[in-house]
């Protein structure tokens, strides 16, 4: 491999930098592609004559750790988890990808949009005089029980939920 032929002076041409560092004009999606390539150990060719191959083994990390990082990454990115959602009075249900959301707040926002209503869940603040405008969000867990959404940590909810139901107050 060997080093790029640049002198040690202070004026460093930004094109000698790795494409994924510093000024980062690239969008996050192309950064993601680069990182996959890096992890696969492929070298990235660029059009600039002085740019050199990206090292596939930098920064220096132990293989077990790299594996753990990759597994965590896969868990976050590639999975989808669609559950059925029914609303009281509407026979046709919808489907929601829970893994596309990061938290209860995120999911509630999507549901309120989907069903055009205000949703009560464990952390909702309710205006006492207007109950009839609200719907309660519940979920069925792996044991077949119907529980109010929001009591357990988000990740725990994801592992327990099988379907959602929005019922009138």
């Amino acid at each position, binding site marked *: 491999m060997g080093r790029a032929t640049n002198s040690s002076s202070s004026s460093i041409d930004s094109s000698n930098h790795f494409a994924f560092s510093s000024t980062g004009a690239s969008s996050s999606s192309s950064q993601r592609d680069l990182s996959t390539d890096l992890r696969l150990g492929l070298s990235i060719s660029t059009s600039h004559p002085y740019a050199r191959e990206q090292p596939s083994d930098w920064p220096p990390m132990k293989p077990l*750790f790299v594996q753990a990082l990759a597994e965590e990454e896969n868990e976050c990115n590639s999975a989808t988890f669609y559950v059925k959602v029914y609303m009281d009075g509407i026979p046709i249900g919808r489907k929601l990808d829970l893994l596309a959301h990061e938290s209860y707040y995120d999911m509630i926002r999507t549901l309120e949009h989907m069903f055009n209503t205000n949703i009560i869940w464990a952390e909702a603040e309710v205006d006492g005089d207007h109950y009839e405008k609200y719907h309660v969000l519940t979920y069925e867990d792996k044991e077949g029980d119907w529980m109010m959404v929001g009591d357990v940590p988000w990740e725990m909810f994801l592992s327990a939920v099988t379907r959602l139901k929005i019922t009138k107050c």
Partner: protein
Amino acid sequence: MSWGSRKTINMNYFPDEVLEHVFDFITSHKDRNSVSLVCKSWYKIERYSRQRVFIGNCYSISPERLIARFPGLKSLTLKGKPHFADFNLVPYNWGGFVDPWIKALAESRIGLEELKLKRMMVSDDSLELLSKSFVNFKSLVLVSCEGFSTDGLAAIAANCRFLRELDLQENDVDDHRSHWLSCFHESCTSLVSLNFACLRGEINFVALERLVARSPNLKSLKLNRSVPLDTLQKLLIQAPQLVDLGIGSYVHDPYSETYEKLKSAIQRCKSIRSLSGFLEVAPRCMSAIYPICANLTFLNLSYALGLHGNELTKLIQHCRKLQRLWILDCIGDKGLGVVASTCKELQELRVFPSDPYGAENAAVTEEGLVLISAGCPKLNSLLYFCQQMTNAALITVAKNCPNFIRFRLATFDPIKPDPVTNQPLDEGFGAIVQSCKGLKRLSLSGLLTDQVFLYIGMYAEQLEMLSIAFAGDSDKGMLYVLNGCKKLRKLEIRDCPFGNAALLEDVGKYETMRSLWMSSCEVTLGGCKTLAEKMPSLSVEIIDESEQMMDFSFDDRQKVERMYLYRTLVGHRNDAPDCVWIL
């Protein structure tokens, strides 16, 4: 020492037993080695009384010579592959096989009790032979090893009746579903330390519970990912005397009975000083851990990928006595500020990258390091993966923390200059080596010229290990180091413009060192051949996985992909694979 007119006392008038007793107090390997060099009689007494031997390069000596010299050997440490093997720069089958060592020891009369291996190839057969050959075998520690499976562990468990320690650190172990934990005999009650955190497969929970229940001396227990919370809670109830705990899976419902039981079990573990693991973790459940944080001296969250910045900071705020902290960079610079204001006893900090190829704002920068240096004056050991570093920061760190023994920095872009001044980081690292007079280990990163090596050669008088990557401009850089660092033992270089002139200037230097690694540099085959010719006491290995190795179609003028050389007393090894050519 001058006695003036008094008669000089000759130590050799003392009977051997007295000298032996004196030598008993000398435990460090270096000191015992020095003792053995004084005279023939001291050499003899020392070698018969030596019980612990450390061999930093398994190819520097043979098992036969080891056994011949130290018949009283009880504890052996062996290291195999060079350090850069950790970063996939060494082929899997390069070498470092423990098999011939165990065979030779088994055939001898050595009563081996402890074996510690690092970066070695271990087979199930050799583990089985080990387990059956030494009646008093007590301790097996495997670090970054591979080539074995849970079958080998089953043999150790089944046959080592007095086993005290089975410590598996970051090994690549094949899972054969061997129920190895069930192989521990019912009469085996001597376990002090059990670490299987790196195992990927399932284990028998009931067998584990029963093992822990019958091990009253158990002080260190590190679980793997498969152990659920329910089991953890039961284990803690059986072993409240634990000093060192590694939690595997930490996912639970904070409203469940199991969680309540866990909370009270943890509270009873008043001796825990060291905590690690959290290989799988549900956030917002860490408060159960807070009660034991006040006494923690070592916290290792480097694999706790499920914990995010806030949780990390909240946890650390409870850990006022922390001396060693291994953490992920999602803690952020601000989080490191919290560490700096909380952990005044901190000696060692390691910050690992949680997202090395991703968005820039996930990482730590020079700011976090400066905060740490200001708040933790006892800091002497650092491993820091960061987005960027500045000279000003390094100069400040050098001033705040003159006690560094180990200083390792890795910027995500290996040739990134100081982002503020656009200068190389020569001055910053120069300040570090000048200020830290006891520095033994250094890893450099960022844009670096020959100048930094001038500083290293000039000031790093105690330096024993140096790791260089993508640095320097010319042979001068490497020469500054070789000429200046008198105590240098291990030098590893990758992707630097150092060539034959530097390699060949002082060939005798390599006999004073354990090893030299150079990869993707300017050194040619001809240069390596010349070196090998001049220094028969060195083994010069060329590692090349291309087809040229098969065809022997090499030209002396060709640059060598990877070269690894080391001093040896036993000539060239005979177990090298095809991709290794020993000159």
